[in-house]
C-alpha cells in the first residue's frame, strides 16, 4: 500500500480517483482530484466501509487560479490522509456527505455559510452565521468586498423538539455561570435524565479564515498559532507543514526535534490542567490545586526557556524561531522527572478515591463503533478504544519525523467513559514525559531554520497530532505567493457531536463532568 517513491500515483479502495503523494516531510498526505460529485461520494463511501474517517471538509473560492469553486475533503485512511478536491459547477451544487459521515453535517453548513456551496438535500440551517451578515453574502468569496456594516438580524434556530409527558427543555449558555467560552446547549430532559442534547455554536466566530487571505505565508504563522490558544503548537506546526509542502521547503532535523519538544510540552500542560479540572468537576478541589501548581511550574519554565507561557510563535514555517542550549535541555529533563514523580503520586490518589471513581466510571460512555462512525480522532477516540495516533506506527502507516524513530506508544482504553478519558490523559502524560526526555537528550545538532523559497500557486496540507486530536491546516497560495485560502481544522468539529451522544444515558448534573472530560474547543471550531 505504501508507495516507494514520493511522486508515485496511487489508488485507494479500487476507486478511480488517482492520488499523488504530497512532497515534504510532514505527515503522509495523498492529493487527488475527484472527477465529479458521484466520484466523491463513492470514494467517501469506500473510506467509510474500510473504517476510515472524514478528517476535514471546507469550501474554497478558487476562481482566480482554477476558474471554479472547489470543495476540499480530507479523509483519514490507513496510510495517512487522502485529500480530495472537487471542482464545483457554477451553480455550486455538491453532493451531501453527511449521510456517509455524520461529522460532515456541521462542516458542510459552515461551508455553505462562508462560501455558499449548496449541499443537495442536506441540513440547511446556518451554522456559523448567526444573523451577523445576510444569507446571500459569503465572506470567503474573493469578489465579495468588505462587509457593509450589516444590521444584526436575529434569526430563529430550529432546534429539534422533544415531546411527551414531562419532557421539557433546559437551555444553557451561551453565557455560563463560570468564565468559559460561549456555546449554547439545549437539553431536552425528563426530570434529571437527558433525552437529547443539541449544541449550537458559532458565538466565537471571528473570521479567521478571511483574515489569512492576502497575507504572506510567514505572517500567517502568527495567526495560525492563535486559532486556538491551548493548541498553539499543533496549529503552528500544521500550518508550517502545509506551507513547507506548498513551497517545497524542508526544515532541518534539529527544528523538527524542537517542534516535537514544544508539542509534547503543550500536551503535558493541557493534560495537567485537565486532570486537575476533572477533580474539581467532582468537587475534589484538592486535585485542582495540585495539578494547577504543576501546570503553573510547567508554564513558567516555558516562559523562561521559550519566552512564552503557551509557546506561541515558537514554530514558524521553515523551522523553529528559537534554539535551546544544553542547560535549557537539562532543565527540561529535570522537570520531567520531578513532574513524573508527582503525577504518579496524584494518579494513585485519583485511582484510589472511591467517591471520584464513582463519579468517573460508566459516566458519559462513548463506544468504539460510535466513535468510528463520528470520525473521532485523538484523545477521545483513544479512550473509546480507537487507537489512532499520528505519532505512532500502525499497520500501513509510518509517522513522519521525528516520531518515526521515537517509538511512540499510543495510550488507549476500551471503556469510553470519563474514567477512560482520565486514564488516557495520565498515560499520555507519562509517555510525553518519556518522549520529552528522549527528545531533549537526543536533539540533533545543526540549524533550526531553513529558508523558505517563495512559491506561486502551490498548496499543502499539514496534519499534526495535537493534545486534543488531529489538527489539520490546508493552505493554498495565489500567483504572487501570498495566502489565498487557509483552512484550520480543529478535532473539536468531530468531537462535539460525539459529546451530544455521550450524555444520552446520563443525568444533567453529570454533564459538566462529561463535557470537560472531552474539553473541546469553541474558538478552534467557530473560526
Amino acid at each position, binding site marked *: 500500500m505504501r508507495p516507494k517513491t514520493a511522486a508515485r500515483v496511487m489508488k485507494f479502495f479500487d476507486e478511480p480517483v488517482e492520488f499523488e503523494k504530497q512532497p515534504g516531510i510532514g505527515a503522509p498526505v495523498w492529493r487527488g482530484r475527484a472527477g465529479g460529485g458521484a466520484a466523491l461520494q463513492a470514494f467517501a463511501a469506500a473510506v467509510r466501509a474500510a473504517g476510515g474517517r472524514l478528517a476535514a471538509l471546507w469550501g474554497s473560492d478558487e476562481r482566480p487560479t482554477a476558474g471554479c469553486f472547489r470543495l476540499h475533503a480530507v479523509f483519514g485512511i490507513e496510510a495517512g490522509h487522502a485529500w480530495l478536491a472537487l471542482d464545483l459547477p457554477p451553480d455550486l451544487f455538491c453532493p451531501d456527505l453527511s449521510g456517509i459521515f455524520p461529522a460532515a453535517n456541521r462542516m458542510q453548513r459552515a461551508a455553505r455559510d462562508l462560501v455558499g456551496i449548496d449541499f443537495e438535500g442536506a441540513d440547511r440551517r446556518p451554522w456559523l452565521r448567526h444573523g451577523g451578515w445576510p444569507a446571500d453574502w459569503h465572506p470567503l468569496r474573493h469578489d465579495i468586498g468588505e462587509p457593509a456594516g450589516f444590521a444584526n438580524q436575529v434569526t430563529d434556530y430550529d432546534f429539534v423538539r422533544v415531546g411527551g409527558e414531562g419532557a421539557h427543555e433546559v437551555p444553557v449558555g451561551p453565557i455560563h*455561570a463560570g*468564565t468559559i467560552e460561549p456555546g449554547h446547549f439545549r437539553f431536552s430532559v425528563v426530570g*434529571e435524565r437527558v433525552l437529547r442534547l443539541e449544541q449550537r455554536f458559532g458565538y466565537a466566530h471571528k473570521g479567521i479564515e478571511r483574515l489569512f487571505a492576502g497575507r504572506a505565508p510567514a505572517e500567517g504563522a502568527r495567526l495560525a498559532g492563535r486559532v486556538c490558544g491551548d493548541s498553539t503548537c499543533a496549529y503552528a506546526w500544521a500550518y508550517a507543514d502545509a506551507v513547507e509542502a506548498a513551497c517545497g521547503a524542508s526544515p532541518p532535523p534539529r527544528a523538527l526535534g524542537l517542534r516535537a519538544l514544544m508539542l509534547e510540552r503543550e500536551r503535558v500542560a493541557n493534560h495537567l490542567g485537565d486532570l486537575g479540572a476533572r477533580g474539581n468537576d467532582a*468537587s*475534589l478541589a*484538592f486535585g485542582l*490545586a*495540585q495539578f494547577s501548581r504543576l501546570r503553573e511550574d510547567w508554564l513558567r519554565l516555558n516562559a523562561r526557556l521559550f519566552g512564552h507561557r503557551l509557546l506561541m510563535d515558537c514554530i514558524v514555517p521553515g523551522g523553529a524561531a528559537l534554539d535551546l542550549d544544553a542547560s535549557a535541555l537539562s532543565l527540561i529533563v529535570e522537570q520531567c522527572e520531578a513532574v513524573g514523580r508527582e503525577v504518579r503520586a496524584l494518579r494513585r490518589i485519583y485511582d484510589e478515591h472511591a467517591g471520584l471513581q464513582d463519579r468517573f466510571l460508566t459516566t458519559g460512555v462513548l463506544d468504539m463503533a460510535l466513535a468510528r462512525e463520528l470520525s473521532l480522532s485523538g484523545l477521545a477516540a483513544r479512550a473509546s478504544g480507537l487507537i489512532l495516533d499520528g505519532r505512532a506506527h500502525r499497520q500501513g502507516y509510518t509517522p513522519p519525523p521525528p516520531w518515526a524513530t521515537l517509538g511512540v506508544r499510543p495510550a488507549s482504553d476500551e471503556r469510553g467513559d470519563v474514567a477512560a478519558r482520565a486514564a488516557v490523559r495520565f498515560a499520555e502524560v507519562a509517555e510525553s514525559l518519556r518522549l520529552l526526555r528522549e527528545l531533549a537528550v537526543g536533539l540533533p545538532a545543526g540549524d533550526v531554520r531553513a529558508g523558505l523559497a517563495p512559491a506561486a500557486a502551490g498548496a499543502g496540507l499539514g496534519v499534526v497530532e495535537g493534545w486534543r486530536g488531529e489538527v489539520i491546516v490546508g493552505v493554498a497560495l495565489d500567483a504572487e505567493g501570498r495566502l489565498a485560502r487557509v483552512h484550520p481544522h480543529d478535532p473539536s468539529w468531530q468531537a462535539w457531536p460525539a459529546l451530544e451522544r455521550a450524555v444520552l444515558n446520563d443525568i444533567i448534573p*453529570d454533564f459538566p463532568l462529561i463535557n470537560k472530560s472531552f474539553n473541546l474547543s469553541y474558538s478552534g471550531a467557530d473560526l
Partner: protein
Amino acid sequence: MSASAALAQFFAIALALALAPLLTGWVNMCRAWLQNRKAPPLLQPYYLLHKLFHKDVVLARGASPLFTFAPYVVFGCMLLACAIIPTLSTDLPFAPAADTIALVGLFGLARLFIALAAMDVGTGFGMLGGRREMLIGFLAEPALLMVIFTTALISQSTSIATIVDTLARGPFAIYPSLAFAGVAFAFVSLAENARVPVDNPATHLELTMIHEAMVLEYSGRHLALIEWAASLKLFAYSCLGLALFFPWGIAGSDSLAGLLPALPALAAKLAAGGALLALVETVNAKLRIFRAPEFLGSAFLFAVLGLLVRLLLENQA
C-alpha cells in the same frame, strides 16, 4: 422577661449575626490550607456582604413580589433559628416560643420560600435547583426530626433549652443513642448546608448546583441577605450540633459572669467544628445526585437506630 434576659437574647442574636460570616470565612480558610492553597482572608465573607449591599439590584423580567420578598423571609427564618438555639446560655426568653419541631419548621419555611422564588423567574436552572432542593429537603427533615426526638426522649421535652440543660447539667450518663443521633445529624447538616459531598458551595458549574442554582438570579442586597442567611444557617446548625452533642461550657444563666466563660468555649468548639467540616469537604468528592437519597437514607437509618437504642436500652435507666 427580665432586662438581663432580654439583653442576653439580644446578645445571642447579635453574636450570631456577627460570627456567622466569620465561621464561613474560617471554613473557607481551612479548606484552602488543606488543599495547599493560599487562603483568602478570614474576613472575606464580610467584604463580600459589604460589596453586595452596595450593589444595585438587578431583577429578572417577570419577577413577582415573591422573588424580592423571599430573601427577607429566608434571612428572618435563619435569624429566628439562631435566636432560639442556645449558643452561650440556655436561658433565652425566645426559647419557650418555639421548640425543636418548630425549629425544623423554620428551616422548612425558608426552604419553601427559596425554592418558590427560584421557580418564580422561570429559568431552567432555578427549576432544577428548586427541584433538587426539595428532594434533599424532604429526605433530610425526617432524619433531623428523628435526631431531635432521640434527644427529646432523654430530656422528656421538645424545648431546646430543656434538652440542652438536661444534657449539659443532668447527672453524668453515657447515652449510646446520642452517638447514632450525632452521626445522623452530621450527615443532615452537610446536606442541609449545601456542603460536599451533597452540594458544593464553591461551584460554578450551573448544571450541578443545588443551592447556588436557586439563587443564580439574585443580586445586590438580596444576594447579600441570602449569603448571610446561608452563613447563619451553617452557624445555627453548628451551634445546634454543639449544644446537643457537646453541650459543655454553655451557661445556665444569663448573667454576665455566666456568659463570659461560655464565649471562648463556643469559639473553640466552632473553630474545631469548622476545621472538621473543611476536612470532610477536602477528602470527599461530590456524590452523583441520585446517590444523595442513599446518603440521607443512611442518616435517617442512624437516627432511627438512635431512637431505638434510646427506647429499648436506655429507658430502664
